[in-house]
């Protein structure tokens, strides 16, 4: 990897000033994605700003009954926290299906949000990739695209966002707090990642000099009955082919509330609004689940190798909602 300068920021202001002063700099959290990409010569920051000692590692209950998670909370800590396990089991489960125990011990919430795609052509400097080198083309379109997007893709890019945690956050209506020398702003998680369009190199709504400081989970009684289902090629340590984050509230056999998001299907965690709309007030039956899943995936399109994901996503949605009905959040 290219030589770089290393600075450790002791407080948020120092971190923000440092990045504002140097456009090519990058924050480093757990480093589990950034360092790999630097080794691969895909990211080449001139300066790496270590933020791991910033005081952003708390998990606190908020006044309105939600939870605020500091951007530097480690993934394993977040998954194990009693507030998360009891109130947002879908989030705890999602994190625990990701990566490996060692990686989760290192990975931070901020880094997880900003991890980059696992497209094989993005990772190979010899390949054409509009995300890596805008205008160079997309070798995945006619290549190995089994893991690629079926929703919201474009001719320029068919990559997916690989995070599990973010899928749960999308279902939970989380908000991302970001800060820069210009001030603080809040971005809904569902707007944080962008679909590729003609500019797949622009992946998120965050500016280059902004620091993620926290993720906020609103109070969400429905989330108590939630679960995460990840479908993958081996039992652990593989990215999702398709994943489902779901929360369900049923009253008298009718769906009184539902949150649904999909992973592994698009360049962003895919909040399934259409399915939610169909399910609300519908009978809580497999039949309804099937209708909702079909509606959500009506616009899905497959590539040469990933068309199976459309059917897989349908089935995963139905299976996850059905299990919520029978088993609740229990593993």
């Amino acid at each position, binding site marked *: 990897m290219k030589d770089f300068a290393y600075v450790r920021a002791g407080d948020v202001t120092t971190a923000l000033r440092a990045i504002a002063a140097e456009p090519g700099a990058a924050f480093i959290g757990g480093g589990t994605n950034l360092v790999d990409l630097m080794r691969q010569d895909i990211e080449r920051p001139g300066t790496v700003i270590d933020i791991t000692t910033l005081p952003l590692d708390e998990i606190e209950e908020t006044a309105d009954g939600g939870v605020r998670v500091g951007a530097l909370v480690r993934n394993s800590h977040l998954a194990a926290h009693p507030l998360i396990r009891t109130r947002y089991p879908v989030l705890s489960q999602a994190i625990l299906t990701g990566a490996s125990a060692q990686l989760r011990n290192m990975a931070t919430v901020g880094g997880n949000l900003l991890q980059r795609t696992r497209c094989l052509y993005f990772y190979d400097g010899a390949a054409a990739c509009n995300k890596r080198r805008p205008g160079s083309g997309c070798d995945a379109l006619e*290549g190995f695209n089994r893991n690629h997007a079926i929703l919201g893709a474009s001719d320029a890019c068919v990559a997916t966002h690989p995070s599990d945690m973010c899928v749960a956050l999308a279902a939970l209506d989380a908000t991302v707090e970001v800060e820069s020398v210009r001030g603080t702003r809040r971005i809904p998680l569902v707007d944080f990642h962008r679909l590729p369009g003609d500019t797949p190199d622009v992946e998120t709504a965050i500016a280059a000099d902004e620091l993620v400081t926290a993720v906020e989970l609103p109070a969400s009684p429905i989330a108590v009955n939630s679960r995460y289902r990840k*479908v993958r090629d081996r039992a652990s340590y593989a990215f999702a082919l398709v994943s489902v984050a779901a929360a369900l509230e049923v009253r008298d056999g009718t769906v009184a509330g539902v949150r649904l998001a999909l992973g592994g299907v698009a360049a962003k965690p895919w909040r399934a609004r259409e399915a939610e709309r169909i399910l609300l007030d519908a009978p809580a039956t497999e039949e309804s689940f099937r209708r909702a899943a079909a509606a959500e995936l009506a616009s899905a399109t497959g590539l040469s190798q990933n068309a199976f994901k459309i059917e897989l996503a349908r089935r995963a949605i139905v299976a996850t909602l059905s299990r919520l009905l029978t088993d609740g959040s229990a593993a």
Partner: protein
Amino acid sequence: MTLTQAQSPPRPGASGRLVGKPIDRVDGGAKTSGAARYAAEYPYPGLAYAALVHSTVARGRITGIETAGAAAVPGVLAVITHENAPAMKPAPPMSVLNLSSLATGTRVNYLNTDEVHWNGQPVAVVVAETQDAALHAATLVRVTYEEFAATVGFTAEEPNAKPQKSDMLQSGSASKGDAEAALAAAPVSVDLRFTTPQHNHNAIEPHATTAVWDGDRLTVHEGTQNVAWVRDHLAARFGIPAGSIRVISPYVGGAFGGKTMVWAGTILTVLAARVTGRPVRMMLTREGVYRTVGGRTPSAQRVALGAGADGRLTSLIHTSVTQVGRVGGGPEQVTSQSRHLYDAGAILVRQSLVELDTLSNTIMRAPGESIGTFALEAAVDELAYKLDLDPIEFRMRNEPERNPIDGKRFAHRMLREAYALGAERFGWSARTPEPGSMRDGRWLVGMGVASAYHPSWQLPANVTVRLSADGTVLVRCGFHEMGMGGATAQAQIAADALGVPFEAVRVEYGDSVLPTGPGAGGSGQTASVAASLLTACEKLKRSMLALARRSSGSPLRGRRLNGLRARDGGLWTEPGPGETYAAILARAGRPHLEVAVGSDTRVGAMVGQARFMAKFLRDRRRWMKAACGAQFCEVRVDPDTGEVRVSRWVGAFDVGTVINAKTAAAQLRGGIVMGIGMALSEETLVDPRNGRIMNPGLGEYHVPVHADIPPIDVCYLGDPDPTMPLGLIGVGEVGITGVAAAIANAVHHATGRRVRDLPITLDKLL
């Protein structure tokens, strides 16, 4: 390798105090504490580091190579390209008469040509003061190419496959009767196509070399399965006598066949050390391993079987297409097991090859049988279902008395017993045959079986054994230890043969200055070394006795060896007096006694080679020798998503005498784990547009993780093979064979679906 031969081994079946016991590995402590030093861990003053630049096109000519940027990186010592590299000699031509000529990884004369033969070929080497500087500078070398048309897609090229020619070691085709006619006439038949993708070894230790020149003498630290091959190959390439080269390889962090040939990294490290005049270390990146070390060929196979209503096979046809690189690689014995497993009336096997502009394929655990048993054993299961027969019963009806293809005698064959043992431990009788009939909650449950099969090999091994006056024993043989427990097993054998404590025996191996040992391959190393070691121990005891008999004071005076027992550190009459070796040596005033089996002198090597070939051919005429076994598995399939998880495994093996119950079980279990990967998840993604491997890393090449592996019950029959030293048959490879078929058959039992294309990923079951 110089071919030298052990004398015929003593009678087998002499199971002793130690042979068979689950003794801990002698190097376990060193490995777990980090004291064991691997090839990339040898410190040298002034050590420099090298990194490779790989081509990004499959075929072409380098038109420009821009190295200034790399050379400008602080700490860079040299950027070596075809424009400035010193000349090397081309790879020696391959010949079965000189086995070390098989060591050639590819025929490309690296950096001595501007031609590119595969996507990933090294086109430059950067040498620097640090590994980081070398790796970074390597990314700054800019290469332009004139591209040539390249043939890189296996599937597209398959129709152009050409029949494989037979040679002394491998046979490309064989037949008995008219199998096609018998197939056409069979009342019940299947005719099926199976495909398997490329696989890569993924040993935990990436290939690494440390090379040090001292004038015209060269020392190489290298994790290898064949120190002698590395030595001889480097001697040929660098034009120096083999005697000037020492290859040291005491620890190898896994290999699975991938460290048998000599690949670019080794040669270019030696070159870099010569160019810079510094000791140089190169540890390949994981990507570098994928791009420069061959993998297992993909395959397309046809298996057609015909049977009568009585369930007796009348026809067995197995044909295969595999790939070789235009620059190297060899055929795989994909149809090997199909010549030996079933008593079919007519048999036809035929192997064909396509030549591609890709890196050479190479051997990988059970080359041939691992993928060949997948096709054969899955087809057998399909036919059993068509016949409405239990798949084990069907196999038992077709179990041969003699080798089916040529009527030779089996040296040892206990497949029936293996099935009986396995079925009992697995609980096969609880299985209901109807597909989809077994469930556990929401999971579909399936149970499958398949036969395991791997021929047994024995290669020459030169050995010396020295017994010292302090009662210790030193065994020296240049064999190899990649984690199998070879040194431990040989120490057990020597301790039993000489009647000394296990702790008294030290085994030296993994060094080309030692008597030439066998390569670690073909599951033949333990047997090969054991044969010579037993002969040496016998010789040593004779010499000891002779020494004792010279003295009037010895209680052994007038005794003959076959009336004595080696125990308690000496030779004893039963019952009655005897003497320790230490006492014999002390009386004779000798510090030690040493014997040798085989010789590394020029003449000795030639005699050895002739003996080996004679024995090899004689054995092959007389017997069919192999390990076999029965693989039983249970899978669970998620009915919604098609995810397959293996939930139970029993492997029952006929591997003759087991030398060390612990390390043998680890070998068999490891093979099964690797087979589970092959069945469910492993696949090297070679882009058919440009021959580039797109998943060169452990993140995207899916070997099984712990969560994929159930408890594995490994058992064996323990019955010695009378034709093998101590009755042992190798255990390194048979474990992987049959695994993928057992899983495919279990998946069918669970779902009613037949997947004939590996890996069995969930999309194939939706």
